[in-house]
């Protein structure tokens, strides 16, 4: 997640400090140079065969020691499930606070770091400040921009190899990779969302067609995954949070949990039979009508207009 370095550099300069990147792993020296190119002033590399695979306890003990040694203002990492568990435990060991899934991170005129995140199932955004350091924050994938790479950037690489590492307390016996779409939905410029207005799983082909024309991807709401078991993932607060250039919500009522996952889309189009559906409040363009008629017609119109000239 290179966007950590972009946001990290920005905050480091506002907090009048420098950005240090930490790499934990085995044979990871090559990554250090790249991180300098993306904005780190210093890279600490803890290279150890015991860090080859991710186990919480050795990683946790390495980070705890590093933080105690370097006393950073802020510790930033990605909002993955592993990342969030790691930092919650790190915060417990350091007796400090931790705010996961931050949407906004700013420094106010008093030099305080303001962190914002979604709470109450998408109904509200809370603004918080820390009263202890380090301030520990996780940010969701793609929430912030990736920094530019600068070949000429200069920075220091510090290698550490004499670290005391705890042994894992759990044993991983099997790992089954999940098939992930070639482009992650977070990376898609256009997302066509399908909700309960679709009667059958096969009907998604009309959404697929529209997605293909717009070079986008199809996303689903939670009920289609959880209740109807058509899919294994969904867009929404508890699933993927996306911010495409264009989101077309087809047959989606727009419950608050779903809206929380699409709120940052640049343009939102809502296609729904129900003019009272909450999604209408969230849309830039509203079509009140049957998605089974509108979506294929939209595909046809776009295909015609986009290829005509």
């Amino acid at each position, binding site marked *: 997640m290179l966007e950590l370095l972009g946001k990290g550099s920005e905050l480091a300069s506002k907090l009048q400090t420098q950005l240090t990147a930490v790499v934990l792993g085995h044979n990871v020296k090559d990554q250090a140079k790249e991180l300098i190119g993306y904005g780190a002033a210093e890279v600490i590399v803890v290279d150890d065969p015991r860090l080859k695979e991710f186990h919480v306890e050795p990683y946790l003990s390495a980070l705890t020691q590093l933080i105690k040694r370097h006393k950073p203002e802020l510790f930033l990492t990605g909002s993955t499930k592993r990342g969030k568990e790691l930092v919650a435990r790190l915060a417990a060991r350091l007796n400090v606070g*931790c705010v996961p899934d931050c949407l906004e991170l700013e420094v106010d005129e008093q030099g305080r770091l303001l962190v914002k995140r979604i709470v109450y199932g998408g109904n509200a*955004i809370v603004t918080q400040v820390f009263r202890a350091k380090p301030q520990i924050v996780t940010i969701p994938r793609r929430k912030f921009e990736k920094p530019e790479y600068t070949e000429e950037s200069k920075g220091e690489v510090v290698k550490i190899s004499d670290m005391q590492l705890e042994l894992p307390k*759990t044993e*991983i016996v099997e790992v089954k990779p999940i098939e992930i779409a070639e482009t992650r939905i977070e990376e898609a410029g256009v997302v066509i969302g399908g909700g309960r207005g679709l009667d059958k799983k096969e009907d998604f082909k009309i959404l697929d067609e529209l997605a293909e024309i717009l070079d986008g991807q199809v996303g689903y709401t939670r009920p289609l995954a959880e209740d109807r078991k058509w899919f294994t993932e969904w867009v929404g607060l508890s699933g993927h949070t996306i911010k495409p250039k264009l989101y077309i919500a087809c047959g989606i009522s727009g419950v608050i949990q779903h809206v929380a996952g699409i709120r940052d889309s640049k343009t939102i189009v809502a296609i729904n039979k129900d003019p009272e559906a909450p999604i209408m409040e969230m849309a830039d363009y509203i079509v009140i009508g049957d998605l089974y008629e509108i979506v294929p017609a939209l595909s046809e119109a776009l295909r015609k207009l986009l290829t005509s000239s």
Partner: protein
Amino acid sequence: MIRILVCVKQAIDVSQLKVDSATRRLILAGAPKKISDFDKNALEEAVRIKEKFGGEVLTVTVGPEDAKTTLREALAMGADKAYLTSDPLFENSDTLATSYILAEAIKKIGDFDLILCGEASIDSFSAQIGPRLAERLGIPLITYARKLGLEGDTVTSERGLEDCSETVKAKIPVLVTVTKEINEPRTPSYTAIMKAFKKELVMWKAADVDIPSEKVGEAGSAVQVLDVLAPKVERRKIVIKGEKAAEIAEKLAKTLIQEGIVGR
């Protein structure tokens, strides 16, 4: 005999929350509360383990006095005994302080083979309490469990992560946080609800668990809330009208292209 403890939270029922549109403030006074959804899954899992192997399921919460209702619900679902740690001193505790209160209460309740929590709470969704508790108690942790098995002194669990599912093992005592997929929580029968009123519900104040005031509430918290506001909605809400689907679709397509939203 297996001893299981389930940590529950009385959460705001977020699906029924209302917002004052003029001030963007949430109307929290009188908002309905309930057991946080994933904590129900944790309770269900604990009760199923008890039904299979025998043993005892206890449940604990930190919250206001009306969290008793939540604990009665937990007892109706099959927990044997419940503990409420409640004190005005605890108000505005963050996860650092709350995990401290819980850990102290748990140490006083006794030793456990398994401690179960929900993966996160439905209202704040920070997923911190389980991991922080495991650290405070110094026991192994398995997060995001969607399957859980017990054999002798070994817990086996399947975790659902973003890019894989991972099967892990750990020796008891273990703390496990569970996801919605792990089971379908039961709806207690009328008899179970009536029985729940006869079960023991212990109430502790800060002093009962030797909790000093500086370690809880605002004083003991590392994160301070500045404000809570409903998000601003600034959308154009332009209705595309027309007689037929084809006409509407064409208007929409042209608009998207003209506005540069869809490119060639």
